[in-house]
């Protein structure tokens, strides 16, 4: 027996869901004294956890800016409004969403979508409409090699993470000769792994294993058995929290030991440290920012410590680099707009281009291609359940410890 009523109601329910999704993007503010920022995010789909982080960063900045009365544009205060839209972890849709935000939602300025791939795709639209776009989570240099005028990003290129790490290992662990590299077959994790391969070879290390694993791999036991049989002293793995938790657990299961185990990007996240427990000990990593940094910024958040405190008060969790980068993008827009004294997109763009300022995120200066070139990303290691900064020396908190069991 077929029940057409059920089918119809299921269909109309899905229509409703779709409408609700659209509704979120088109909540028009009628007030004049509002600056609208468009933020396309992968709110649903596999990248959803990343969207949450960026959203929390933007929201914290908007809340702080509005609490202080808003953004000062030539003596008049404007409230901040962030327009969110879900592109469902689907890169082509992030492009459509960006265009829709600029043409229909009439946003003044844009934040980039998550990651390098989507940011590169969406930046084309921002460039076409001459809307300044700040990308909070795009690191690959291929995003910026188009030499767009309106795109700026707060992540340094990937090799700025792997080079200091390799030099540190080289200096502290002379008997590390063989490296095994395992990478998630995905834009950012693979790019980092390729940079690692280059850094390792440049520093005279032998790369005994370099392989990619597929997204959604449920089991790594065969791969890890093979790596174990090659006896590397340094195991370098890239991926996201899920992959790295699983791989770390399976390394323990297989009784794999190495002098150095590096994982990017998991250990930068508190959830990795909590979920990995004892097995996170002595895992090293690198990221673009760390809550232990101590910058005295000129932005709305001021010091790094103040940003961390505000964030913890609001969300009851430790911020990581993704949260911080999103928040600093907001703060940078605010500084550029206040300096320009106008909402004119070209004037704000020019202010961003010549920006040279210290923020809670670190020193901010963009290169000619729009990518930040002033930042020195920290290398850190999990020691006694806490991340400890090892590099740069100015903010160093402890010494590199060898041996991961």
């Amino acid at each position, binding site marked *: 027996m077929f029940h057409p009523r059920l089918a119809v109601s299921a269909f109309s329910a899905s229509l409703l869901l779709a409408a609700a999704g659209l509704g979120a993007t088109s909540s028009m503010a009628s007030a004049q004294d509002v600056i609208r920022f468009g933020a396309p995010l992968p709110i649903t789909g596999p990248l959803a956890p990343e969207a949450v982080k960026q959203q929390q960063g933007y929201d914290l900045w908007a809340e702080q800016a509005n609490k202080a009365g808003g953004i000062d544009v030539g003596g008049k205060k404007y409230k901040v409004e962030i327009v969110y839209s879900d592109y469902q972890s689907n890169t082509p849709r992030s492009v459509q969403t960006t265009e829709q935000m600029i043409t229909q939602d009439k946003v003044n300025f844009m934040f980039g979508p998550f990651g390098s791939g989507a940011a590169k795709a969406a930046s084309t639209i921002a460039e076409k409409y001459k809307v300044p776009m700040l990308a909070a989570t795009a690191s690959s240099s291929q995003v910026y090699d188009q030499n767009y005028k309106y795109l700026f990003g707060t992540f340094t290129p990937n090799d700025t993470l792997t080079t200091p790490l390799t030099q540190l290992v080289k200096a502290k662990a002379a008997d590390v000769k063989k490296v095994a590299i395992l990478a998630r077959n995905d834009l950012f994790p693979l790019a980092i792994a390729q940079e690692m391969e280059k850094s390792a070879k440049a520093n005279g290390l032998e790369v005994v294993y370099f392989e990619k694993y597929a997204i959604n791999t449920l089991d790594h036991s065969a791969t890890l058995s093979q790596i174990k049989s090659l006896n590397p002293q340094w195991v370098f793995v890239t991926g996201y929290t899920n992959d790295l938790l699983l791989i770390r657990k399976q390394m323990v299961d297989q*009784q794999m030991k190495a002098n150095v185990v590096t994982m990017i990007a998991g250990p930068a996240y508190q959830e990795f440290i909590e*979920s990995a427990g004892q097995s996170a000990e002595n895992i090293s990593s690198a990221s673009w920012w760390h809550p232990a940094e101590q910058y005295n910024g000129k932005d709305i958040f001021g010091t790094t410590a103040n940003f961390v405190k505000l964030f913890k008060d609001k969300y009851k969790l430790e911020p990581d680099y993704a949260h911080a980068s999103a928040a600093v993008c907001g703060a940078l827009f605010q500084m550029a707009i206040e300096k320009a004294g106008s909402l004119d997109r070209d004037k704000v763009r020019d202010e961003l281009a010549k920006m040279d300022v210290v923020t809670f995120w670190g020193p901010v200066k963009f290169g000619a291609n729009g990518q930040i070139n002033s930042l020195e990303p920290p290398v850190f290691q999990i020691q006694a359940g806490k991340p400890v900064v090892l590099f740069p020396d100015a903010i160093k908190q402890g010494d590199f410890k060898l041996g991961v069991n």
Partner: protein
Amino acid sequence: MLAIQVLINALVLGCLYACIAIGFSLVWGVLNVINLIHGSFIVLGAYLAWGAYNSLGLSPWYALLIAAPAFFVFGYLLQRLLLNRVITAPVLVTLTLTFGLDLILNNAMIYYFKADYRKLILNPPTGSISIFDVVVPVDRLIATASALALTFLLYLLLRRSKVGRAIVAVRLDRDAAVLMGVDVKSIYAIAFGLGAALAGCAGVLMALIFPISPLTSSAYLGKAFVVCVLGGLGSVSGALAGGILLALVEGVGSVYLGPAHAVTLSFVLLIIFLVVRPQGLLGRKGFE
């Protein structure tokens, strides 16, 4: 030595895959419903184990005793109240309905548990045993043993009990079963309940091994689907055969072709089976 280690890894992993797939195979085989909510049931079972351990201090072995009846009731009601209404409609309708239910359950889990990845860490850890350099993690061994036990229990139930025979009868010939006085709607509900209970138990066991997040449900569902096609529907041992075959192909593939191609290889195998042997390794009509 590497070859033996890879083989042992694959055998253990194969039993885990069977554990993931067995409930899915039962529902597909008996009800002819491709139950897309299966992956989310497994994740929900994993959260149950995680919550019971972290807030009540209950070990996952006890969580199994809660999960089995709770998921049975949940599955039974779902079939009774919703799926039974469309069970005789073309397969696309039940597929759409379970798809919709999966969206609801999965998003509800994202809402309540967040999309963060969690891990059930036993204290003290169970560790691994090693014999002549071949290492086997104890938690995987336990999960494997439990998976085999659950499979055997299901086999006994279908073979020996009155309800079990009725389930097999409905699968073989629905109309004849009705004539023999079998209450088909209630048998459907019991079979779906059993499938849900098996998924819930699988989830409890997987919580020991894999990170827990609502986002992993599709990975479980994908494995269950491949295992069923490889092993064949309609037999308890089919899930086991399919699971081990899949794990072997993935393991050998990732050592000799690289891990990026292991998944590709398993799907190539899936296509070959669909073309050459659509009934799977041990598939048959009915459920024995």
